[in-house]
């Protein structure tokens, strides 16, 4: 089947979802009111609370929620065939992510722009705030671990990407100095920076950098050496002021996102490639079954709990008219779905003939450990349709993922540091909370330990448990979404409206997550993976806790329905 048909199929479904389901949500579930005075007007200060055109706000919202995870998850999930992956991305985006993202904006806007952490404490219970903090702690630990491995895999398999990935650093530092010290316009330097980055790609190809010598000198595997180097870099990067490196990278990342999406879809159109992957892949009995693992392997791209933090953190404060939440929230979810679609295309139509696909996705280890490599190869093929050599195209794709993953880790380590400080204060270790270097070191060492966990299920027998770490990451992301959906469901119920639109994805996600966690528990126990077992058990306790909190809050709300609440 031509890959173009998958694009048409997904885009038609997204259009119908927006046209009909989001309208149902807007009118019947959230009852968006054009006369409601949003926080942007109620507390209008021109700083945080600013009525903003819906197109401006969609741009802010979408680029804030887009990242590397919608690429990695689908790239692994096509192991079960393109149909389950595509179906979950489409259905998840329409019936779960759209509900979640739109609902998060609305509930926050109806509560003076409060964030989802505060709202969970207010709408569900005081304990839910602690639950939120703990889920985020595990989520960030796993995010940092998996993206450390992602970068190491890409550096090891694409040594040509090392120079371009490195050159981003001085470019970003220059842009930061130019903009924030000199107060100059940033767009031209950032475009020049992007061009320099692209010029560095063939240079990187010509001079690939490998660390085999260093690895053998210190007696470690190549990938282990990369992981250590990456975490060392992350420690330093996360201790720098954000305007030096992190913030200028926003410009380059934003431009890269636009360019990557554009060339992938254009490459598919021009090349008219066919999908080489089977619709449904017959996997071996010892592989994880798509049911329930598909639903936690693809988190971002189908539904991501982190979107609720963006939706309630800034977007809700800038909503001009309440009905525009539909365009911004639901539209942003569709944009993320489109990114996941691009990853599915690259890994099903870009890999070449069916035989090559079968080799690339021979087992779950190859699928998970090699997922990024498959995305990179597939994207390289699409770029070759545009006349760009496939190897250069592949390096381009690797650089996109590496820069996104690097930014994610820099952010993740900083956030983990703040959360560790907060947890240490809650636990009475106040002396720890002010020791930034120590906290940063802890924030690096915890995911580093996880990244180095042996598991042996990845491609090439390198011995890392990347695939299993990724599914654990998916469970924490789905729990964050579950918490936000609980808040939304209780809020909808409190207004005497039908909460099923929020409850169905909530129950579905929690069921799939707890089921997968249980299967993991058995698997880790049988394989003697004690660290992963402990991690999985802790997340399972959080999942059970969340279920209890959600059920209690919904029951409480059902018993206290107020006929007059529908108007609030």
């Amino acid at each position, binding site marked *: 089947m031509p890959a173009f048909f998958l694009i048409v199929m997904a885009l038609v479904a997204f259009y119908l979802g927006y046209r009909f389901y989001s309208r149902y949500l807007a009118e019947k579930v959230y009852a968006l009111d054009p006369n409601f005075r949003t926080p942007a007007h109620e507390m209008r200060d021109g*700083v945080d609370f600013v009525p903003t055109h819906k197109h401006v706000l969609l741009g802010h919202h979408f680029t804030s929620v887009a990242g590397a995870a919608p690429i990695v998850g689908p790239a692994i999930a096509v192991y079960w065939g393109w149909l389950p992956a595509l179906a979950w991305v489409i259905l998840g985006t329409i019936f779960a992510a759209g509900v979640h993202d739109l609902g998060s904006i609305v509930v926050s806007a109806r509560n003076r722009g409060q964030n989802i952490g505060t709202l969970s404490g207010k709408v569900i219970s005081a304990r839910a705030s602690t639950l939120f903090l703990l889920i985020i702690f595990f989520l960030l630990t796993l995010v940092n671990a998996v993206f450390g491995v992602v970068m190491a895999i890409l550096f090891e398999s694409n040594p040509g990407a090392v120079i371009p990935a490195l050159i981003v650093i001085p470019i970003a530092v220059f842009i930061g100095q130019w903009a924030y010290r000199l107060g100059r316009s940033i767009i031209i330097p950032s475009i020049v920076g992007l061009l320099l980055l692209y010029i560095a790609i063939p240079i990187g190809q010509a001079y690939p950098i490998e660390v085999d010598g260093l690895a053998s000198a210190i007696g470690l595997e190549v990938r282990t050496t990369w992981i250590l180097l990456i975490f060392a870099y992350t420690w330093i990067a996360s201790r720098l002021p954000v305007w030096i490196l992190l913030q200028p990278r926003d410009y380059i990342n934003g431009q890269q996102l636009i360019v990557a999406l554009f060339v992938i879809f254009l490459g598919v159109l021009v090349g008219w490639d066919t999908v080489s992957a089977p619709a449904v892949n017959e996997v071996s009995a010892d592989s994880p079954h798509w049911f329930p693992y598909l639903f936690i392997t693809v988190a971002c791209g189908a539904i991501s709990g982190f979107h609720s933090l963006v939706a309630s953190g800034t977007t809700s404060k800038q909503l001009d008219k309440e009905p525009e939440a539909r365009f911004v929230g639901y539209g942003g979810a569709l944009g993320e779905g489109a990114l996941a679609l691009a990853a599915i295309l690259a890994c099903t139509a870009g890999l070449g003939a069916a035989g090559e696909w079968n080799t690339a996705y021979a087992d779950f280890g190859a699928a998970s450990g090699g997922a990024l490599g498959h995305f990179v190869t597939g994207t390289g093929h699409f770029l070759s349709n545009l006349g760009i050599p496939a190897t250069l195209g592949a390096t381009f794709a690797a650089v996109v993922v590496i820069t996104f993953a690097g930014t994610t880790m820099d952010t993740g380590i900083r956030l983990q540091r703040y959360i560790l400080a907060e947890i240490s204060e809650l636990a009475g270790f106040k002396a720890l909370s002010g020791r930034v270097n120590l906290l940063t070191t802890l924030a690096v060492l915890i995911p580093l330990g996880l990244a180095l966990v042996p598991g042996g299920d990845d491609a090439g027998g390198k011995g890392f448990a990347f695939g299993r770490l990724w599914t654990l990451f998916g469970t924490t992301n789905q729990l964050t979404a579950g918490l936000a959906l609980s808040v939304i469901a209780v809020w909808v119920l409190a207004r005497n409206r039908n909460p099923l639109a929020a409850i169905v994805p909530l129950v579905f996600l929690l069921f799939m997550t707890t089921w997968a966690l249980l299967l993991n528990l058995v698997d880790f126990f049988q394989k003697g993976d004690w660290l992963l077992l402990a991690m999985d058990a802790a997340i399972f306790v959080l999942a059970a806790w969340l279920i209890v909190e959600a059920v209690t809050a919904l029951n409480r709300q059902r018993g206290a329905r107020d006929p007059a609440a529908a108007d609030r």
Partner: protein
Amino acid sequence: MITACRTDRPEASAGAVTTHQVILVREQDAQHSGSGCCGRLGARDSALGGAADFSHSRARMERIGAVYRDLAAAAPELDLIVADPRNLLWLYPTVWRAARRRGLGWAATIRSMARAGAPMAVVCDGDTLYSGRLPATDTVVARVLERIAQD
């Protein structure tokens, strides 16, 4: 140019229109791209902290906020927009269209677009009046009003 008014005055919401668009460009005190689906740093009251890291952006937000409030008070009919320079897909086409509509030449349009992409800028009907640094709020407001009065 006719654009819908975005002020919160009841008469404006009822359908009043304005002929002038002013874009106040400033960075939000938060991370914007690259990791949003699994971690986002900054923004006041964003649940996870990190806002202090963006104190420099915060200072610019408050600086632009003062201009916003004074402009909204002085000329409530303005189509007053606050945008982040990292919002590439919206900002540059909008400045382009407005500049061309205003009658700026190609070179002036491109220059205006380039100057609009600063951590802090003021764009009036496609013409970037300030880029990077702003003088006193009164001066900015006076210049915007003067520019509008010229048309």
